């Protein structure tokens, strides 16, 4: 059943592409229906699969001569991320309700991207996974380049080239793994059992990990993320931060760590306390956490604050992965979900609710607008979303980051200490942005009061409620996801791919 999320999204994209021009309302309705159906399927699949481990959905020979199968399957991790994709898709459609330019094309690219994302999370054949992974790149380019804002063509090209460079590294690693294992199968499970030589894993692991981590926004390969997020139209930034960055993190976990577990073994020598690829990437993750937070602290563009906060939050995901223990990796997966929901929420507020009304994202200009009075929904919405994002108990961010920190403490207390500093800076930049954008007491500039800001519409409220509700639910009742995540992580850590 879950496989239908993919087919439905691609079919929806095709229908949108064929819709007559100028029928914006129809295009919106179709997109919302497709996204909603996808979400319903994702929820049903999640609820129905809670007690089960890995379930194979489809397994058909695709290119028999090369041992390539069309294998779709779902385990606990996949189900959680599919659920996230469903949420982000619906919220994305709702927050793009006001797009009038080439509406049907917008939703065609949007749904194609969603379809690719569903596909990656459900693929258990590496070839298939890579196909879906690349399918997700092209729509991103067009979404940003056509419907974006600030320096959109530059940002779109940068993002496309970074993504493609990353996927080229992944492709080389996968081809090498396929050839080294004897060119029999591209199946994730089969290759996981192939016992690749440790010396091979030692260079294949960093290659594939970095290839995926580029998309996860790992420092120093993160620079596409802030520019891309800022230039992208609201729905695209929600998807980029919400799910596309998770594709990268998911690839790191499922492919790089699952296939080449011995790539993280100690090198046998140490330098400045770094003695394995695992240490290298953990340190990069910690640098990302602190660096992203510090840069977010000094931004003048509201959207850049959120953009850099994404780099910081994704650092927690990568750090969690590198703990290699049950609690840390589970926390990383939970953080993927949590950040997906919260980043979507923050981008939705900044990009749709605020920017589309004020036509500026400069914090200095927003200061003069007294938005807390004129747009109370946005102000309080951002306040609670920001609180959730900075990791206050009761929201998903807290549970996730706490688990990552506990996990990293077991691995190395230094990592935890540094990441803790990142959380403190996170509080600072969120409050700073909140204060400047909404609750400033700078005297108002007269002409800004001239026109009334449009009222909040139902799609915005619904989208907000959906994402916020998800974060709150997970924050209050984390077991709902953890019961699904933990067995899958345990299996993954125990035996290579499975």
């Amino acid at each position, binding site marked *: 059943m879950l496989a239908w999320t993919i087919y439905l999204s691609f079919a929806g994209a095709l229908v949108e592409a064929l819709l007559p021009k100028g029928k914006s309302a129809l295009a919106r309705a179709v997109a919302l229906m497709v996204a909603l159906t996808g979400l319903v399927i994702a929820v049903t699949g999640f609820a129905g699969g809670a007690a089960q481990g890995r379930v194979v959905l489809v397994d058909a020979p695709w290119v028999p*001569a090369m041992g390539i199968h069309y294998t779709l399957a779902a385990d606990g991790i996949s189900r959680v991320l599919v659920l996230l994709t469903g949420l982000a898709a619906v919220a994305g459609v709702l927050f793009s309700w006001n797009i009038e330019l080439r509406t049907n094309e917008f939703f065609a690219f949007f749904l194609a991207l969603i379809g690719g994302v569903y596909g990656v999370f459900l693929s258990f054949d590496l070839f298939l996974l890579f*196909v879906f992974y*690349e399918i997700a790149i092209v729509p991103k380019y067009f979404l940003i380049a056509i419907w974006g804002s600030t320096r959109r*063509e530059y940002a779109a*090209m940068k993002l496309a080239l970074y993504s493609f460079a990353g996927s*080229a590294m992944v492709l080389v690693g996968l*081809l*090498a793994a396929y050839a080294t294992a004897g060119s029999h199968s591209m199946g994730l499970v089969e290759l996981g059992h192939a016992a690749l030589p440790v010396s091979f894993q030692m260079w294949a692991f960093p290659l594939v990990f970095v290839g995926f981590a580029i998309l996860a926004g790992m420092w120093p390969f993160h620079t596409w993320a802030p520019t891309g997020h800022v230039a992208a139209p609201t729905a695209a930034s929600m998807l980029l931060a919400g799910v596309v960055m998770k594709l990268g993190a998911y690839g790191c976990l499922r492919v790089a760590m699952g296939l080449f577990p011995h790539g993280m073994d100690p090198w046998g020598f140490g330098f400045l306390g770094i003695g394995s690829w695992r240490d290298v990437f953990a340190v990069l993750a910690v640098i990302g956490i602190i660096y992203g937070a510090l840069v977010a602290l000094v931004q003048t563009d509201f959207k850049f604050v959120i953009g850099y906060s994404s780099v910081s939050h994704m650092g927690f995901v990568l750090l969690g992965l590198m703990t290699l223990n049950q609690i840390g990796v589970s926390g990383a997966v939970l953080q993927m979900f949590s950040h997906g929901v919260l980043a979507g929420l923050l981008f939705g507020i900044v990009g749709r609710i605020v920017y589309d009304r004020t036509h500026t994202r400069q914090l200095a200009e927003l200061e003069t607008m007294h938005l807390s009075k004129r747009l109370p929904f946005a102000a309080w919405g951002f306040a609670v979303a920001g609180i959730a994002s900075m990791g206050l108990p009761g929201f998903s961010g807290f549970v996730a980051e706490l688990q990552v920190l506990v996990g990293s403490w077991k691995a190395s207390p230094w990592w935890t200490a540094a990441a803790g500093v990142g959380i403190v800076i996170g509080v600072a930049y969120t409050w700073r942005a909140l204060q400047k954008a909404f609750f400033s007491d700078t005297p108002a500039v007269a002409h800004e009061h001239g026109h009334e800001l449009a009222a909040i519409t139902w799609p915005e409220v619904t989208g907000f409620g959906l994402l916020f509700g998800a974060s709150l639910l997970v924050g209050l009742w984390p077991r709902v996801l953890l019961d699904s995540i933990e067995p899958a992580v345990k299996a993954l850590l125990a035996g290579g791919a499975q």
Partner: protein
Amino acid sequence: MNYGELFRVTLPETALDLAALLVLLVDLAFLRKAALQVRVAMAAVLGVVGCLAAMWAVGMQTSAGFSVDGLLVLANGGVSAVAQMGVLILTAVTLLLLIDSSFTKHPGEFVAVTLMAASGGLVISAARDLLVIFIGLELLSIGLYILTAFGKTSAKSAEAALKYYLFGGMSAAFLLFGFSYLYGLSGSTNLSRVVLGTYMASAHGATPLLMLALVLVVAGLGFKVAAAPFHLWAPDTYEGAPAPAAAFIASVSKVASFALLITISHTALHFMESFHFKGGYVTVRVLSAGDPELHMTPGFITAWPLILILISVASMIVGNLAALAQTSVRRLLAYSAIAHAGYILLGLAFFSWEPRSAQAILYYILTYGLTTIGAFGVIGVVERATGSDKLDAFLGLHKRSPLLAAVLLILFLSLAGIPPLVGFWAKFNLFAAVLSVGGGFWPFALVALAVAMSAVSLYYYLQVLKRAYVMPAVDETPIRVHPVTMLVLVAIAAAVVLAGCFPAVLQNWIASF
């Protein structure tokens, strides 16, 4: 010499040449007064019928080929048959896209020369003898020079043809010179005897003379496939030639030339049942010689891949980097063709005796040829509407003709190697074949270079798509596309998508010969 057998084996070539004569007859004798559109349509349809007849003839072949004194001269089946089928299908598609073109008042001659050049392609695909190879190459090349010059009102066309001809003549001289050394080394013009003879003559590594001979041969063939550093004609020719002629050069001529390279690489491995290193020499078990084991480093097999690797790396780098700077879409395609030739040459350098390598290369070149023909079809339409092939001629194409823009999107993304389009599968298959042949550092490093370079290529393909989809249109008047042209272009795009989604179908077809 059995002439009956010769006639039977060359039936496809004969069919094409008869069709060429028929086209000329009909056009010159019966349609003198008819409108140009009618004459073009008639010539194209007759040409396509000729191609279909020749395909039938290829399919009907049952013998192993035509032999003289027990040595194969023209082969049937296997790689040769696939390449011949490819040549014929691509020729037919090129002719179908001719339907609404008006660059010439002599459609009969154009189609006839196209068919004759294609028959040269058929000869090359099947040839197993140096002299026959050379005749086939000349038959193809001379046809291509004429086709390039067919835009008689365009100075660029004449310039392109002259450049192509001068380069071509020189490379043919190199090739012939190299062949003469090979003959001198081995005492035979038959390809398998040549390889065997050079094994014996160069038992202790490639002698300087063999090396020189092979470099000369590669220079001649590198010209045909537009591999760096023998690529200089390609951008000018692609830019100046009429669009259908450029499409023909970019596809059919490539298929035939790569089929020949496959044949040579294949023959080079033919006599080795096994080979392994022992004490500085490769121990080779030679099948057809009396002595079961010869201790030697066979020159051909050490020198040939080395030369191919060098021009492969040069082509990948030169093609992809130069394409970044182009403003003409035709020149961009020319440089991208050089890059694609580089990927394929990598497949030829790490070639295996197993059919896998040959099939991967054929898959690549056939799908690449089809995609390129489609790309030139789109360029032809845009040129007729805007009078230019510059990047900016594509501005706002999605508004002017949404369907055409969609076709362009699919074809260019396929050339860039984005799944699920066929270009991705072709690359994956080719690189997997390379890695399955060679272990160790170099194959991985070269494949990594190729994949990295194809990441670079996305940039320049996106430059065209950016203008078609993203940047604001200057002129929004709709482009009228002839329904047949549109149908063919959509069919090509559909084939690119379907072959990418179901790669096994085409793969099985190639393996079935």
